[in-house]
């Protein structure tokens, strides 16, 4: 490393590997936007139906959710919003956790937690519809 004037933004490891970029730098950025736009129609639909959505009346809530449009909107919202959330938390972990082991562990917890939460929420919607 002493042969180089070390004012470059590249890390010594990066220079030694000499591989350049991974060529997929925009993928995460792009799906973050796609998932944001994807959740908009279902989110607006749910907002319009908010007075029904927050009801305490269990029967009324189930009857509402057993209709095709509410069930679909909720399912689509959960899929797109939870995916969007896991992408966002991933960047936060990558930005602030510098220990490689901790980072990989937290990234794994993040992915698994959102898969679990999303599958559980959609399972509930499906069970309410098909008992």
């Amino acid at each position, binding site marked *: *490393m002493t042969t180089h004037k070390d*004012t470059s933004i590249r890390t010594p490891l990066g220079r030694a590997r000499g591989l350049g970029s991974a060529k997929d730098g925009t993928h995460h950025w792009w799906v973050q936007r796609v998932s944001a736009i994807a959740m908009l129609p279902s989110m607006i639909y749910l907002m319009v139906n908010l*007075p029904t959505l927050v009801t305490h009346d269990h029967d009324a809530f*189930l009857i509402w959710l057993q209709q095709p449009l509410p069930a679909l909107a*909720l399912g689509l919202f959960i899929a797109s919003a939870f995916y969007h959330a896991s992408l966002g938390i991933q960047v936060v972990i990558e930005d602030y956790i510098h220990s490689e082991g901790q980072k990989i562990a937290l990234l794994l917890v993040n992915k698994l937690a959102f898969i679990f939460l999303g599958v559980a929420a959609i399972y509930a919607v499906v069970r309410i519809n098909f008992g």
Partner: protein
Amino acid sequence: MQNKARPLSPHLQIYRWQLTMFLSILHRATGVGLAFGAAFITWWLLAAQHGPKTFDRFHEFSHSIIGQLMLAGWLFSLSFHFLNGMRHLVWDTGRWLSLKGAYASGYAVLIGSVLMTAAIWFYAGQ
């Protein structure tokens, strides 16, 4: 492999606080808050599926003082993250990137998210 001579960008303790950085930090903070809110959405739906008693228990929590504070915080986070997200999407097309555009849209988003929070709160409770 650490090289102390590598250039560092200026960071939070050096910059004077300004609207644009505050909104950027708030976007991330509200995003993290909303991500934790996902657990409550799942809880709410599983409770509805489980039965009336479990559903009641969820609403007992959501109507407690802590629950209402969390709900208000969640609503503001949703409103702000939604509006500021729109601002990001406009930036992605190359618009509003001037100092004036960033500040005008920034103030609009901040005021808009307070209004949106209040509007949704009263609309939902009608």
